[in-house]
């Protein structure tokens, strides 16, 4: 029986195993092979059954030993062994006929050599893709791809190439395994050339070329050996082809499906990484330029000299905008003058110097028409003959007018070597630079003018000023201050304004002297001349004129600027003292001056004017009670100093100087005091005094205006500035100061109200609410805003109060306020009146005079300019908003089953780019990544980090959307980003939303405030758990939590800018309250806008950036 069995053929295996694609066999307890399936029979060769397993040379001892263990009752699964030149996976298990011991064992094994290859490639692919996610540069990516691919595929060479911008060439980014010559020759090649890579790129499909006989004849012309095989794939993202990837294999390799699959997968990874890097580069370049522009804007704003502005702008044209030549020209009369230039040859500049506004050249045209001219090519430039010579050097041109306050000041000219320099966003950048330059130029000219005026005012103050003037010698124009007209006896505004008009007013006998000295002053440093004038009513006055010469940037004198002092009184006194007693008496009694005579220190006679000044009676004089040491308060409180007495005794006179008089009632008075000795031996003298009260007040007003100007130029937040200005006015110049401004909506609002008593300020605020301003009112701010004319009431009659009060209550309040005198001046800038400044006297009881009107108008004028400047500044800050917007997703995607919305508000003064960002994007299969974050800080570094964070979050989420993975990747990327050694961190929330019913939201937080969810039933919950902020520590502690989101739930993600707005109004709790109070069916947009509006209301105009992202499950 046993023998018969021994000779029997090996039995097939039943139960479907016979056809299985792996070897399967059964042995008995003695390890003899009892049955085998077809695969095993083929391996072992047909043979009799019952042969001991160890006798088959095809089976390895390891396999036999594993089967042996199975016969002993042990299952052996998943064993990998070397056998018959390949790797095999083995499973063995005992066969039980009876429970005591196995009756044998079954075993199965299969060749898994190719699987291992696949597995190895898969692992390598994963590793490459992980490395790629960290690579930012294209050459780095190409290198990683080639090294990884070559190692796995055992390829001899490889290359990555990208299409050039025009799509005609393939430019090699990296090559491996090729000799230097090939590398040089194939650095770039036409796409049209028949190459495997070129065909793959053109055909948008892989091209595999096998070695040897079957080789494709298309490539016979290429210098590639016949036994070389190659695999080429296009690098594509969506339907965009970026370039190609090729590998080359030596020695007759064929390209099996494993290799094909790997190369295709590697190509996909490579394309995505390159696409990301390209996007990032483009973004980085735009960001860099925007940063540089912002930097230039700051430096331009700080420039105080027009020349400096021009230099900065011309330099920025090259450094920031990439021009090869640049120039800034200004309009002077009908000609153009070059202020600064870079890169233009001297002949070209010489041609421009003789430019005319009417020339047929782009520069002249852009100035004439007030719009930029962009010429993209020499063909376009052909319509300007002036550019014919330039076409040899450059290929594109821009001429942009410099416009400030609607006036063309000059132009910016740029020439480029490359036509791509004038694409859309470059034009925006050029226009931005021109606008910044124009405003800076305008400011610099203005500030130079103001500083000149201020210098003159100060000079006038020092000299005991009366009026200032400016003479432009080239045009012959003469500008006078208003008080100079008064000195000359002219009505305000009637001075003719030319040098000849001035000369006509000079006394005929003095004209020649004045003219000669002024001309000489023009060639020197200025002039000094005492001369007479004749007023229109025929009186002669004495003028002391002094000037300094004005110079332009090259140091050429352009005119004189100076002061004129009315010295008639001094001259009269001199004359009086010199001339007859009768005339002296006449003057003595005239009352112009206080005159006294005395002996030693005693005053024994005085005219009425002096008595009135010092408050003594003639009887007091009779008692000889007044001595100089009682009257004159010297510097140390004493009488005339010894030096002054000696002065008076020796030359016989004491020059006029300022003194304080002590009046009889103890009050003091500023006077100009002079004296002359009539008879030295008897110590008899005569003195005169001029009341300086009026002049002191003028001085105070001028000083006040200087203070106000400083204040107005300090800040661009004009609302706050106006309030401070109003507070500066009160109580110095008024009991009340109110600044009212006409809004875009036609409503007049009080932007600033000041009074020493805060309750009265509150009262006015309340009245403004109860009695809104009527824009058609016949008097007050509305009338001034309408007409642009100042309103001045020395006294406010009661009838006026009755007229403006619609009811008894208001009339009662106004009467109680005791308003006495008012001046309301218009706020006018650039020809438009948009508000009014009112100063009111009430309880302090004074009245305004005509001379105060000028002061209020001057103040209003400066305030108007400050407001106007602030408005211009706001326009500029819009640029920064645009930049920030480029870091945010422009449009949120549609998420099925969800209603989503976002709000973003830039912070601070609006010029710096902040660090808040958010993102929402699909990661496939109904899954979405939700990101919100806040990078600490502002400006350039913050913008860079925001970019890094956002791109990393996106890239890593597409790879693996687990929030922990995404946050980990961001942390690593931030740690690697250079921050100049400063600590810079980022807080963020990353979520994975799986849509469905219900949806699930998995969230992880890194140092970020918790997102909130408002459930359908109105309860509000915090989401996520605390986690380490990012960018500081290499081992952040992060946890994720998952919550269900059901229909009607609203998820709110936000940055701390939102809750910090409520720092004084509940903070985080305020947001919860707001969500609890939401109307049930609010859309995502409504929720986001409500949060934004409430936060802005709480924080005012100044605050941090804020971002809100709202998702509502429908």
């Amino acid at each position, binding site marked *: 029986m046993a023998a018969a069995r021994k000779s029997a053929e090996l039995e097939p295996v039943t139960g479907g195993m016979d056809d299985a694609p792996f070897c399967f066999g059964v042995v008995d307890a003695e390890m003899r092979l009892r049955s085998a399936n077809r695969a095993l029979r083929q391996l072992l060769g047909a043979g009799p059954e019952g042969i001991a397993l160890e006798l088959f040379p095809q089976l390895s001892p390891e396999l036999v030993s594993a089967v042996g263990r199975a016969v002993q009752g042990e299952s052996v699964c998943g064993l990998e062994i070397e056998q018959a030149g390949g790797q095999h996976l083995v499973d063995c298990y005992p066969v039980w006929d009876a429970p005591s011991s196995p009756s044998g064992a079954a075993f199965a094994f299969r060749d898994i050599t190719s699987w291992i290859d696949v597995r190895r490639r898969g692992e390598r692919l994963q590793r490459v893709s992980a490395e790629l996610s960290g690579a930012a540069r294209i050459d780095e990516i190409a290198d990683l791809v080639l090294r990884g691919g070559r190692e796995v595929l055992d390829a001899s060479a490889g290359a990555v190439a990208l299409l050039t911008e025009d799509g005609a060439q393939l430019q090699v980014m990296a090559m491996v395994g090729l000799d230097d010559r090939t590398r040089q020759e194939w650095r770039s090649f036409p796409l049209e050339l028949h190459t495997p890579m070129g065909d793959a790129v053109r055909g948008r499909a892989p091209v595999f070329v096998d070695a040897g006989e079957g080789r494709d004849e298309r490539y016979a012309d290429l210098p590639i050996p016949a036994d070389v095989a190659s695999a080429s794939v296009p690098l594509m993202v969506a339907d965009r082809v970026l370039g190609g990837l090729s590998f080359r294999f030596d020695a007759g390799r064929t390209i099996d499906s494993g290799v094909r699959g790997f190369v295709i997968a590697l190509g996909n990874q490579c394309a995505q990484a390159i696409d990301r890097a390209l996007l990032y580069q483009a973004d980085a370049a735009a960001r860099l330029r925007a940063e540089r522009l912002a930097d230039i804007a700051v430096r331009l704003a700080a420039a105080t000299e027009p020349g400096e502005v021009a230099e900065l702008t011309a330099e920025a044209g090259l450094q920031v905008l990439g021009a090869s030549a640049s120039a800034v020209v200004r309009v002077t009369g009908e000609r153009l003058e070059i202020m600064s230039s870079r890169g233009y040859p001297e002949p070209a500049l010489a041609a421009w110097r003789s430019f005319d506004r009417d020339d047929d050249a782009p520069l002249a045209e852009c100035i004439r028409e007030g719009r930029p001219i962009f010429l993209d090519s020499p063909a376009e430039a052909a319509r300007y003959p002036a550019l014919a010579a330039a076409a040899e050097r450059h290929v594109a041109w821009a001429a942009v007018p410099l416009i400030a306050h609607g006036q063309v000041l000059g132009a910016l000219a740029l020439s480029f070597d490359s036509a791509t320099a004038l694409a859309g966003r470059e034009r925006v950048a050029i226009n931005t630079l021109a606008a910044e330059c124009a405003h800076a130029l305008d400011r610099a000219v203005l500030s130079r003018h103001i500083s000149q005026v201020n210098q003159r005012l100060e000079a006038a103050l020092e000299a005991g000023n009366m009026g200032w003037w400016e003479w432009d010698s080239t045009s012959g124009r003469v500008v006078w201050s208003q008080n100079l007209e008064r000195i000359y006896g002219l009505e305000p505004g009637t001075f003719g304004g030319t040098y000849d008009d001035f000369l006509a007013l000079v006394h005929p006998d003095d004209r020649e002297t004045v003219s000669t000295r002024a001309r000489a002053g023009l060639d020197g440093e200025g002039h000094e001349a005492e001369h007479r004038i004749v007023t229109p009513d025929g009186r002669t006055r004495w003028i002391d004129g002094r000037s300094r010469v004005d110079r332009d940037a090259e140091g050429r004198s352009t005119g004189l600027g100076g002061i004129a002092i009315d010295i008639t009184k001094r001259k009269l006194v001199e004359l009086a003292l010199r001339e007859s007693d009768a005339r002296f008496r006449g003057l003595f009694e005239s009352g112009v001056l206080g005159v006294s005579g005395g002996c030693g220190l005693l005053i024994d006679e005085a005219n009425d004017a002096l008595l009135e000044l010092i408050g003594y009676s003639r009887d007091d004089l009779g008692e000889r009670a007044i001595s100089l040491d009682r009257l004159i308060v010297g510097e140390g409180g004493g009488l005339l100093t010894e030096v002054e007495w000696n002065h008076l005794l020796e030359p016989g006179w004491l020059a006029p100087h300022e003194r304080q008089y002590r009046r009889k009632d103890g009050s003091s008075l500023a006077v100009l005091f002079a004296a002359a000795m009539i008879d030295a031996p008897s110590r008899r003298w005569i003195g005169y005094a001029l009341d300086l009260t009026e002049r002191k007040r003028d001085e105070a007003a001028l000083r006040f205006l200087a203070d106000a100007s400083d204040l107005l130029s300090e800040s661009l937040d004009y609302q706050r500035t106006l309030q401070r200005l109003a507070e500066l006015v009160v109580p110095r110049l008024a009991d009340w100061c109110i600044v009212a401004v006409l809004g875009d909506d036609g409503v007049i609002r009080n932007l600033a109200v000041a009074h020493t008593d805060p309750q009265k300020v509150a009262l006015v605020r309340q009245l403004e609410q109860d009695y809104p301003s009527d824009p058609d009112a016949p008097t007050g701010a509305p009338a001034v805003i309408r007409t642009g004319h100042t309103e001045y009431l020395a006294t406010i009659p009661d009838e006026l109060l009755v007229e403006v009060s619609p009811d008894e209550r208001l009339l009662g309040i106004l009467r109680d306020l005791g308003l006495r005198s008012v001046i309301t001046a218009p706020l006018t800038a650039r020809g438009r009146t948009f508000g009014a400044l009112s100063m009111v006297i009430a309880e302090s009881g004074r009245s305004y005079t005509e001379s105060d009107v000028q002061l209020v108008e001057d103040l209003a004028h400066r305030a108007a300019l400050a407001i106007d400047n602030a408005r211009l500044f706001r326009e500029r800050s819009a640029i920064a908003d645009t930049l920030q917007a480029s870091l945010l997703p422009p449009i949120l995607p549609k998420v099925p089953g969800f209603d989503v919305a976002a709000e973003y508000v830039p912070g601070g003064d609006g010029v710096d780019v902040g660090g808040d960002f958010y993102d929402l994007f699909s990661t496939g299969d109904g899954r979405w990544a939700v990101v919100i974050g806040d990078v*600490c*800080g502002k400006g350039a570094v913050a913008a860079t980090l925001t970019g890094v964070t956002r791109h990393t979050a996106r890239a890593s989420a597409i790879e693996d959307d687990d929030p922990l993975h995404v946050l980990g990747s961001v942390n690593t990327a931030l740690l690697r980003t250079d921050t100049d050694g400063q*600590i810079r*961190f980022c807080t963020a929330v990353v979520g994975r939303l799986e849509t469905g019913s219900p949806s699930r939201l998995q969230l992880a937080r890194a140092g970020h405030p918790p997102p909130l969810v408002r459930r359908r039933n109105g309860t509000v919950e915090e989401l996520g758990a*605390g986690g380490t*902020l990012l960018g*500081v520590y290499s081992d952040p*502690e992060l946890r994720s939590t998952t919550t269900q989101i059901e229909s009607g739930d609203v998820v709110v993600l936000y940055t*701390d800018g939102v809750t*910090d707005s409520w720092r004084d109004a509940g903070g985080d709790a305020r947001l919860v309250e707001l969500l609890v109070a939401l109307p049930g069916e609010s859309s995502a947009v409504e929720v986001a806008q409500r949060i934004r509006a409430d936060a802005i209301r709480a924080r005012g105009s100044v605050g941090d950036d804020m971002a809100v992202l709202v998702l509502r499950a429908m």
Partner: protein
Amino acid sequence: MQALSLERRERDGMTLIELAGEFDLAAEPVFHSGVEAALSEPLLVLDLSHVSFMDSTGLRLLLETDARVRENDGRCVIVQGNGSVHRLIEQGLLAARLEVVSRLDDVTL
């Protein structure tokens, strides 16, 4: 808005700097000028329990100060109080990274 004020005193072997007011971007110059001279002290205690508001700039300044004191082999202890300072430290899980205590009395020498 209340500007940040700093007061430094030496006490029980520690250099104590008490901060009061709002600790934000506007406070950066004041903070630097007040803390600069204390960075090489062996034990620097920043008492923030009277800080009414702190934002991410304040937090960055704390992290920087801590790093610089450690560079000098010193200790930097932060008294966090229980307002917004506490909340930011908790949100960023910084109690595990910085030496943070709740009250001044809890500072160990």
